[in-house]
């Protein structure tokens, strides 16, 4: 059973949810559920995401013009809202990703330091 074990999962750092969503949409339009599943698969279910929190974030990102939404029909033929990356969203993704990698690099440099 996939009952979550919180202690074994990484909590999401502030501000990283946007980056994950942008990344999820680089492979084409998805609805919110689709984004959640993709994140679960690609992180091998190591991230602890409250899936509902995707939605306010999606709305905020749409307001900023990074993504666009449109109602369409899902694989199961139900009405669903699809999100698509805009040009400005693509730019946002690359700059956020770079920022993230610099942070990771700096963090691991610090954490692996052996002597004072």
């Amino acid at each position, binding site marked *: 059973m*996939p*009952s*979550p074990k919180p202690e074994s999962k990484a909590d999401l750092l502030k501000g990283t949810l946007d980056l994950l969503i942008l990344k999820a949409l680089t492979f084409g339009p998805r*609805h*919110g*559920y689709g984004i*959640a599943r993709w994140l679960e698969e690609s992180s091998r279910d190591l991230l602890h995401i*409250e*899936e*509902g*929190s995707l*939605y*306010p974030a999606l*709305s*905020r990102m*749409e*307001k900023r013009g990074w993504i666009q939404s449109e109602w369409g029909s*899902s694989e*199961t033929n*139900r*009405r*669903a*809202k699809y999100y698509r990356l805009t040009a400005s969203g693509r730019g946002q993704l690359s700059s956020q990703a770079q920022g993230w990698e610099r942070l990771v690099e700096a963090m691991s440099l610090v954490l692996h330091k052996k002597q004072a």
Partner: protein
Amino acid sequence: MASSLDRWIRMWSHLSRRRLKGEVDEELEFHLEMLAQKYESQGMDPADARRAAEERFGDPGRIKKSTFRAERSRVKQRNRAVLMDNLRQDLRFAFRQLWKRPVFSGIALAMLALGIGANTAIFSVVHNVLLRPLPFHEPDRIVRIWESRLEQGWERASVAPGNFWDFRDMNRSFVDLGAYRFSAANLTGGEHPEQLSQGRVTSGFFGEVLGVRAVIGRTFLPGEDEGQGEGNVVVLGNEFWHSHFGGDPSVLNTQMTLDGESYTVVGVLPRGRPWLDFADVYTPILREFEAVRTSFELAVIGRLRDGMTLEVGRDDLASVARRLEEAFPEDLAGIGVTVGPSSEWVATDETRRALWVLLGVVGFLLMIACVNLANLFLARATGRVRETAIRAATGASKGRLIRQGLTESLVVSLLGAGLGLVLAWWGVNTLIAMAPGNIDGLSDVTINAWVLAFTLGAGVLTGVVTGLVPALQASGSDAASTLRAGGQSIAGNRAHNRLRSVLVAAEVAVSLMLLVGSGLLIRSFGELMGAERGFESENRLIASVNVPDQYGPDEFLSFNQRLLDRVRELGPVQSAALVHIRPLSGGSTGLGFARPDQPDPEGGTPWASWRLVSPGYFETIGVPVLRGRDLTADDLAAMGDGPLPALISERIAEQLWPGEDPLGRTITLWAGQTESPGEVIGVVGDMLERGIDQGPTFAVYLPYFPAGFAPDIVVHTAGAPTALVPRLRSLVAELDPNIPLSDVATMEDMVGRSVGSRRFTMVMVSIFAGLALLLALAGVYGVQAYSVAQQTPEIGVRVAIGASKAQILKKVIFQAMRPAIFGVVLGLGGAYGLTRFMSSLLFQVETSDPLTYAGVAGILVVAALFSAFLPALRATRVDPVIAFRTE
């Protein structure tokens, strides 16, 4: 186009909060169900699956709320962006439309410029003359103060000097009282002598009471009105400073010779009215102890202490008056005070009323312009009915269509307002040039920020009113039926035609009201000019001869005699005489009169104006001596012994001796004051002494004895009187080079000045009413032409089945006249209701004057017939074959 329309519609539906909430719910529910399905497919039972889904998802209620909040903020921002985008599109569309139809645009802009320009011009006058605050510190604390004798029927007399000083010293509610005496002084030392108007004021008049400061130097110092200080000092009025010294500040401490005495310039007042630019120069009044208490000489104003009301001040002064009455029971029996707020100084009641009426008139003019414009838009909307229907069918919302119509009319009306501003700028200057001189504040009317705001407001209002009607009509028509009818929606047209008729009736009604107003004013003015004046004005010249106070009595009399002798020798002079206050000048003198052998009549002693005149005055001014004789040189010589020789006006004779011969009778002059006996030596005709619109007064004429009043000379010439002016001037200079001639005018000028403000109102209202008539007729014509064009197929059918030209003409004209007649009836009722606001502007004409109403209604009906006739004539020339082809 359609896809962008689609987007707009989605935008607008987003505005609906409920719909947005539904969408959020749907999206989140989809997620939960999908998640639950996934767990079920892994073998959970449905209830557990749902619980697990919710655990993974988070609290649905909380998430819904925060998602909805984020969505609403997003949609709001997007709507704003879309609105701006739409506005840009609408503006581009509106300008393109304007550019594409230059004739339509030209007519629309011209009408608006006219309407808004007239309103802006009149508003700028109203604002400057009526609404602008007085140029004083806290003007609501400043009041005007008069003496009264209510038992004798006078409420507002100037204040006697003796009483003024007591009022000033004994009151407890005023910071200070100030007094002003109108006077004149001869300025010498320049190339020519010149008469200046001189205001004599108490020390605190400008500083303490009005709260103004000198622009350079100072005003008067405490004590300067009691003879202390540095000798003769003078303060200059601002206009005088500019006209005589070019506004040069080095004027301070220079010397001026006034009436032969040297004065030092100590300051210059700021610009402004009243009081400030009343006189050229100002000098202190000198306080006299034992000052007279029965000669009403001073204009008095006061500044209330902080927090004191006008009523408190009045009661305070009234109690001072009672103490004075006790102290001087003979001189001051019945003395009271009247106190008026300074707001009364802004304009006379008549000016105020005239300006408000004018503002109303131009408001109506703008209304007519709006109606015409709405009609134009309506006609165009009908022409575009197919385009509109298509857009409505493809999903453009009503709101969107209305907004586009409004944008268009706003663009037109704001452009019109801009043009109107230019027109108003020109109009204000014309108006100032035309206006009579007695409206304070008119000469410096400007287009200021308030006026700009007014114009902008008028433009926006006009745009909304003219745009809303056709836009509502257009969006209200049923798209499907319009398209089916091939773009010529029968139902839509019928509604449009009805609306157009209503608009025509409205503009005819409004223009009729304005014409009635102007008609009443024209009739009044006719009455005024036709009124029996009692004197002649043709070929009469009048001028003030400023004989100085220093002349002794004998010197004064001999100067007067030599002057008259020399003037009578001049070629074109038929007669010449002197009078101490010229007719129609508004200057007044008063005395009580009574029959010594009869008790005073009920209602107190009647009051007459009195004039000192030289022999020959009546002949010169053209007043008939009805009984007895004119004054002679002997009457003047004999003065001092026995009663004063006096001529009385006919009304006095009828009042005191009805049906009897007044000649040789004794009349008590200055009754209740000095009680001087007079002997009636003659009766003269009544004349309109105070003003053409004032009615005749009681008048007493006495010999011109030397009492310190400089004379006005009246000359009756054979030809044009102004040709005499240079010779008169050089003649006076020969007699005494220090005496200036001033206020030279013909009697015709005096009459013109006396009726100036009435003429001004009449001309202005008539111009605007004329414009209103033109606009209304253009409206009738336009609607008629349009409806004939519309009915061409129908008329074609009638012609084909044998209708005669006369029948068609009759039908078409009848159709156009119906709303016009309706408008005339409506306008007559409206005029009857509204003209009573102008009753105070009329002279011997009732506001319900039937002649005016009938005449104006007649003119309008004929004019409307005429403007309906031309298009109707076109209808009779319809060729059925061509008419069918246009179908």
